[in-house]
């Protein structure tokens, strides 16, 4: 996956000629690059500016005064007594989702691939990706129906068996498990699609050759299927590591309540409460920048590690 830099030809004329030859490719890149510049890069620079300013709506980006000290907004975030708990919760939830999610999705993709019945495969695949389409509000409603201590199906059964009930929804630790579990339920089938697409690109001749050699199913999976999709897995892993500070704002915002703040309040929910509900625009930009910087370092580091295994994003 490495784009090899064009060999430095001798002389400017040769370079110029090569550019001309590749004119078509540059034309292909053009719309995308324009988009990138306007809607991806420009906001980044704007964010940097806004986060070190005392942003005033009237004065705009260029008219607002620089905050004194310039790191005032960052300080507000770091000094909050919530800072460490937020960081801890964010990392914990994010990593658990990743470390459980990726293997589950890969396993599902492999299972689907190994399924010989076309019909069963199609039905199960459709069923597993369907939860992806449900909004978190609904999934939370379903959790309520299943796990509620007063109304819930599961607690109903537990109560008939043991007479007491389990506070799934109000105990902070079990609530965190609920957050992660419901995320797995929602995203595994969907994530498996990409692995399935990669598996479907594997040359069937490899499978035939393995069959000829008398390989068992497990051996085939271990030596053919997995290695062929390793690059996709590593890619996903690297990217997930990069977004490790995004633990799922949409989900948690919908599901959380004050009783479980201690385990599921994440950076983004705090920023939303503090920054937006309280007209502190610079704060949300500052925290956003902080998250971006961390994710940048994470990806670079993890990518370097991955390079040792021959994989890399660039």
């Amino acid at each position, binding site marked *: *996956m*490495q*784009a*090899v830099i*064009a060999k430095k030809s001798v002389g400017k004329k040769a370079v110029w000629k*090569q550019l001309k030859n*590749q004119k*078509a*490719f540059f034309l292909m890149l053009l*719309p*995308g*690059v324009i988009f*990138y510049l306007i*809607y*991806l*890069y*420009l*906001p*980044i620079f*704007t*964010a940097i500016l*806004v986060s070190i300013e005392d942003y005033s709506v009237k004065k705009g980006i260029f008219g607002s005064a620089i905050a004194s000290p310039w790191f005032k907004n960052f300080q507000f975030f770091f000094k909050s007594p919530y800072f460490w708990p937020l960081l801890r919760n964010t990392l914990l939830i994010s990593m658990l989702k990743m470390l459980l999610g990726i293997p589950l999705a890969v396993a599902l993709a492999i299972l689907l691939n190994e*399924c010989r019945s076309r019909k*069963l495969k*199609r*039905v*199960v*695949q*459709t*069923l*597993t990706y*369907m*939860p992806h*389409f*449900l*909004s978190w509000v*609904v999934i939370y*409603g*379903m959790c309520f*129906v299943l796990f509620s201590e007063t*109304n819930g*199906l599961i607690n*109903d059964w537990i109560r008939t068996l043991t007479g007491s009930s389990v506070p799934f929804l109000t105990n902070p630790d079990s609530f965190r498990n609920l957050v992660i579990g419901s995320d797995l*339920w929602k995203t595994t089938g969907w994530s498996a699609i990409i692995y399935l*697409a990669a598996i*479907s*690109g594997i*040359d*069937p*001749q490899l499978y035939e050759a393995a069959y000829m050699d008398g390989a068992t199913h497990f051996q085939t999976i271990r030596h053919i299927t997995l290695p062929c999709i390793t690059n996709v897995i590593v*890619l996903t892993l690297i990217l997930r590591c990069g977004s490790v500070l995004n633990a799922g704002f949409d989900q948690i915002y919908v599901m959380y309540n004050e009783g479980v703040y201690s385990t599921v309040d994440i950076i983004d929910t705090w920023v939303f409460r503090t920054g937006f509900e309280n007209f502190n*625009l610079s704060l*949300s*930009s500052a925290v*956003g920048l902080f998250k*971006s910087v961390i*994710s*940048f370092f994470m*990806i670079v580091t993890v990518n370097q590690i991955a390079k040792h295994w021959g994989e890399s*994003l660039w």
Partner: protein
Amino acid sequence: MVKSKSDRLYRFTVAAILVLIGLVCFFPMLYVVSVSLTPYDEYLRQGGIVLFPRKITLEAYAQFWKEPYVSDCFGNTVFITVAGTAANIFVTVLMAYALSKKDLMFGRFFTVFCLIPLLITGGLVPTYLIVKNTGLINSLAALIFPTLVSPYILLITRSFFSSIDAGLYESARIDGAGEFRILFAIIMPVSLPIIATIGLMYGVGHWNEYFASLMYISESSLRTLQVVLREMLNRASQMEADVVVPTRTLQMAGVVISAVPIIMVYPFLQKHFTQGIMLGAIKG
């Protein structure tokens, strides 16, 4: 091919696990549909636990369809999903194909250029400022242009194009075909699996778009379905005297209407994955 006993056991186990997984995914969905079809008082009488509807009514659906602007927003959602996804695929494929060329001049630079926004984002306010300054506020285009290319999906597409047999490209080139011709006439037909995949990813993103629609569009008739749904669901916690709190059955009907159309799309695309396998066999 002789089917050995262990082979049959293996196939059975695989099937059994898949069936189990399917059921785990299925039952909550069944619940949603069942509740949406049950009359509310019947729902209460069963203590809120309804797996199979005993009585069926379409009342909740009719009620959801009366939410303000629901048909407008439904139409908007369909439009941006179709038009937006088409635009997404077009620009992404062009870009990813060019990036996949190993001998592209400044290729490394472009790759890094495309990857950086994966790691660093501008954030809510700056992006809003740019969207506003490009004149997209209060138009459906605000839901299409600012997310024209997803760096992540670009990456996936690029890696797919990299893995296409170079021979395919070379032989066309020797025949004197231009780059665009090669892309559209030769590479694309082989790339249907990836097109289907990224089309689905972009499509679902558009269909479920909520926050951008809320942020950039304040004209109620130009918003999307998810906004209508969420507004309805949020009413459940509102304390104003006038507010009619939506019943659970109404909430579920809204969910079904908002999710079913896009779910229906996938089965049509699934065959392209299998097509890719067959093509691979012929090509070899």
